[in-house]
């Protein structure tokens, strides 16, 4: 009987090894270990054995059954692995095919530039002030030291709606409004970005609608040298750490002294090229110390408080930064133009 079991074991293992798939294997399992299988048969015949033989054969039968079971499992794992491998092989794809595009737009370059400037000044403790685009003559001109009939009003031909209401020609009225809200108490530390409008014919360098960003600081002991510090920080962050700045005297009705700021040309580093018109310097913004009249009109004591203000054009900055040659591109919104500013 022991021989019979031994033969069954050999036979079963042989069959197991011959199995090519899980189905074959299952058949082998049923054939040898099933209720009607030969081992069960053998065990059924145990009753005929002697009391001495019975535990020996019983133990041996279990041993054979366990070995076959073990072999079956081994083979099963093997076949499963093979099946997986085969399946994976069949599942292979061409990873070089293009992926499914994720729809993704981006910001307009002007927004990108404005946001960059906003974030820079936010990090310096400024807040962002806003105001209406349709303004009163008072805030757009008079509160900024530009009374009716002032020659400097010629500098900015305006879109008037009524005698007293116009499209703002600058974002400075936001400064006047903000100062007024502070009721003579400093500090004021704001920037005001926004759209402005002037009666210009649209061409490569002019636009009847454009953007401005202005800044204003009013406090006790604000100095022109501080303005220089803030502007230098701005210039380096926007145009590169090795930029130098230069202040030139200029004129704006709402500041005195007034300055214009040039930066050393980022293209040629000051040697002279077409971008800086051979001068080595590029005009970036206008600024100055807030005119005492403007402070007083907004309710600040100009003996106690001083301040500085600056203003710049995001279009100009974007044009310089990205080498854009025509201001009208910003407003035509050609999708091929807009798409270029993914990483701006």
């Amino acid at each position: 009987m022991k021989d019979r079991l031994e033969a069954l074991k050999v036979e079963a293992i042989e069959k197991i090894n011959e199995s090519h798939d899980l189905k074959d294997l299952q058949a082998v399992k049923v054939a040898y270990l099933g209720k009607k299988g030969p081992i069960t048969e053998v065990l059924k015949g145990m009753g005929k054995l002697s009391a001495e033989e019975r535990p020996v054969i019983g133990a041996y039968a279990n041993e054979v059954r366990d070995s076959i079971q073990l072999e079956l499992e081994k083979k099963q794992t093997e076949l499963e692995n093979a099946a997986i491998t085969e399946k994976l092989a069949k599942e292979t794809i061409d990873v070089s095919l293009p992926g499914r595009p994720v729809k993704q737009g981006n910001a307009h370059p002007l927004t990108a530039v404005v946001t960059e400037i906003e974030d820079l000044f936010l990090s310096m403790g400024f807040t962002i002030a806003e105001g209406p685009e349709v303004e009163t003559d008072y805030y757009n001109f008079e509160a900024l030291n530009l009374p009716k009939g002032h020659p400097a009003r010629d500098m900015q031909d305006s879109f008037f709606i009524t005698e007293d209401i116009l499209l703002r020609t600058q974002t400075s009225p936001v400064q006047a409004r903000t100062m007024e809200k502070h009721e003579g108490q400093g500090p004021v530390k704001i920037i005001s970005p926004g759209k402005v409008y002037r009666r210009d014919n649209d061409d490569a360098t002019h636009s009847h609608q454009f953007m401005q960003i202005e800044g204003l600081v009013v406090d006790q002991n604000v100095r022109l040298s501080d303005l220089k510090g803030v502007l230098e920080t701005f210039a380096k962050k926007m145009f590169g750490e090795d930029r130098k700045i230069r202040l030139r005297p200029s004129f704006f009705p709402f500041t005195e002294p007034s300055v214009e700021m040039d930066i050393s040309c980022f293209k040629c580093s000051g040697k002279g090229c077409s971008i800086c018109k051979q001068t080595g310097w590029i005009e970036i913004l206008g600024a100055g110390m807030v005119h005492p009249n403007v402070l007083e009109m907004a309710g600040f004591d100009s003996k106690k408080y001083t301040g500085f203000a600056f203003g710049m054009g995001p279009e100009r900055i974007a044009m310089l930064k990205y080498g854009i040659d025509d201001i009208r591109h910003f407003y035509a919104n050609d999708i091929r133009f807009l798409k270029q500013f993914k990483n701006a």
Partner: protein
Amino acid sequence: MLISYNWLKEYVNVEISPSELADKITKSGIEVEMVESLNKGISGVVVGYVKECIQHPNADKLRVCKVDIGQGEVSQIVCGAPNVAEGQKVAVAVPGAVLPGNFKIKKAKLRGEESLGMICSLQELGVDTKLVPKEYSSGIFVMPSDAEPGSDALEYLNLNDHVLELGLTPNRADCLNVLGVAYEVAAILEQDAKLPDTSITASEEKAEDFISVSIESLEDNPYYGAMIIRDVKIGPSPLWMQNRLMASGIRPINNIVDITNYVLLEYGQPLHAFDYNRLGSKEIVVRRAAEGEQIQTLDDQNRSLKDTHLVITNGKEPIAVAGVMGGATSEVQNDTTNVLLEAAYFASSRVRAASKDLGLRSEASSRYEKGIDRNRVYAAAKRAAGLMAELAGGKVADGIVEAGKREVNMYSVKMDVSRMNNLLGTTITSEQTAAIFDRLGFSYKESNGIFEVVVPTRRPDITIEADLIEEVGRIYGYDRIPTTYLLSEARPGGLTASQAKRREIRKYLEGAGLYQAVTYALTTPEKSTHFSYTEDAVYPISVAHPMSEERSTLRMSLLPQLLEVLQYNQNRSMEDLAVYEMGSVFINRQEVLNDLPEEYVFVSGAVTGVFNEHLWQGERKTVDFYVLKGILEGLMSELNLSERITYESGEIENMHPGRTAVVKLDGIPVGLVGQLHPALQKEMDLKDTYVFELNATSLIEAETDQMVYQTLPRYPSITRDIALVVDQDLPAGDLFTVIQAAGGELLKEVNLFDLYQGEKMEEGKKSLAFSLKYFDPERTLTDEEVVTAHNRVLKSLEEHFGAQLRK
């Protein structure tokens, strides 16, 4: 303002080159926009003497000249100019010479006659045609007879000069003349400015015997002075004067007119010369014009005047518009012998009014408008009278006949050195300050660091301490001001909640595949009212003086411009487009705009063509209503407003009546989403286009709860699916509402997962399949509870809509 470098050097010692000078002037406050060399690449042009001039044997329009070009050398030159003649001194480009445009002169044969060079016109030497004196405008230029043959013609013609173009800000009208610039340059270079000679030798005759002057309003005309110059002989002015005028952009006319222009450029004082004999009276009366009064001006135009204009009259009728233009009747002509020279100070407001209304802007009017130096009027008059004696042989009658006050007192302004240093962040001493005021030619008194500065009348821009601080600062040099950092306490900056939300909305839409556009706020009156979804009466806001009809009226919607963006791109063969804009719209509810209109930030989008595409996998999804609605739903979720937003079908002008929803927040309209009306699509030649527009201001201002964390579910949920058969026109939204209400607390999620309307359905019916998810965060639900809730839902659906479960 164009300033001749050579002319400037007459009043101030300049030892640096024009470009170095320009650099210094720019750094000190006046921007030199350009330094132009009058020599536009000329070499080899000499003075020649035309000894002989005969008709060319083979050409009617040519002459053959024998020209002495110095050192006894006589060259034969063929010349085509009609005015060439024997005895002239002319500019000759000899063989080897170069003219502007790198035009090289060579020996040539013209119709068989040898020609050794070219006799030049001023245009050929690079002078702008409109500056060339009329008599030489279509021929060669004839030089003065004392010009030396063989010498450099450019010297005679002042073509070795340089011209500085100043970009003057409105406060520096003092530099609208050569003397003013001389003062500025003197301060910069630490030199003294020299004044021109204004001495005159008066004749026995007295000016007051020839003319009387009266002024109606001293406010309009604070001062009027008249001088009489007799026996002048009209002719060309000397070449040096013509050269300077041309360098300054003024065409020479005749000696008398040139002198008034010359002194205008020199002193900044507008002057006018009348033909005394043609005045029509012996008096000058300055008064306001009568409404509709007529005058024929120098340019032979008849002009109708207004009562805001100031006129010079002969007591009866206008003979000039004050400060703007003279009249034709009293114009200086070739036979003029006696001249009345006007030197006056007119109020800038009067000159501006007339110059604007008549559309006449001149060198004179622009100077009056910007303000002239009151105390220089008389000096300028004497300077011009003296030149008329010297250059036109006139006799100056004694005295000036005046009305008003000739000079005004100078005022003083105080400046505290310590306050200056506080404002600039500098440590400039009183001594340094005093030295700078000396350089500027300002007189002052100083004690304990307080300066009391007498401001010269040429600098009316200086009225307060800050103006003096700027003067000291700029001459001291802004590059010497240190760089410091604000002393004020550090306060956190940061975006307001509204600003942060606007950025969030932009980021979301870009993430959803839309490109940001920025368009113009001004549109046509017609387009300004498109896409209005409010019921209120609104009035378009138009600007008073638009540049064009296209840009005349403020927008009330962003969509018309976004559609133009689509159009622009489609015209350039870009078909698949998705754009959005965030910007202000302007709503006016007043019939007459007295107060500022309401401004809202809107955010709008327009999408056309394929929205999702992955061709090799067969995916190609054209935009439809649900693409845009999905974007809005995501946005509302981002803004934590999903629960309060509803979409209700609505009819809006220019929108597809069956494919448009009004977006409501708490039941109040805040926007729209849908397809453009096919008629408008056709009109604009657009493909199927879907748009949305939202009042971002309303969405941002809506109060939302602070976000609160929800514990993750610890108990399983139970999902039940139902397929319902309902009437075809029943909106799915209604089913959602009823299901949610009937499901009660336990029903946490309802999703529509199938919509079928087709052949297999009974006529007029459709099937919708929903998946309902029940759960209780506190415990495991029993089947019984779910069944109760679910049956409630089914019953309610049947009661409301007669909805049957699909079999």
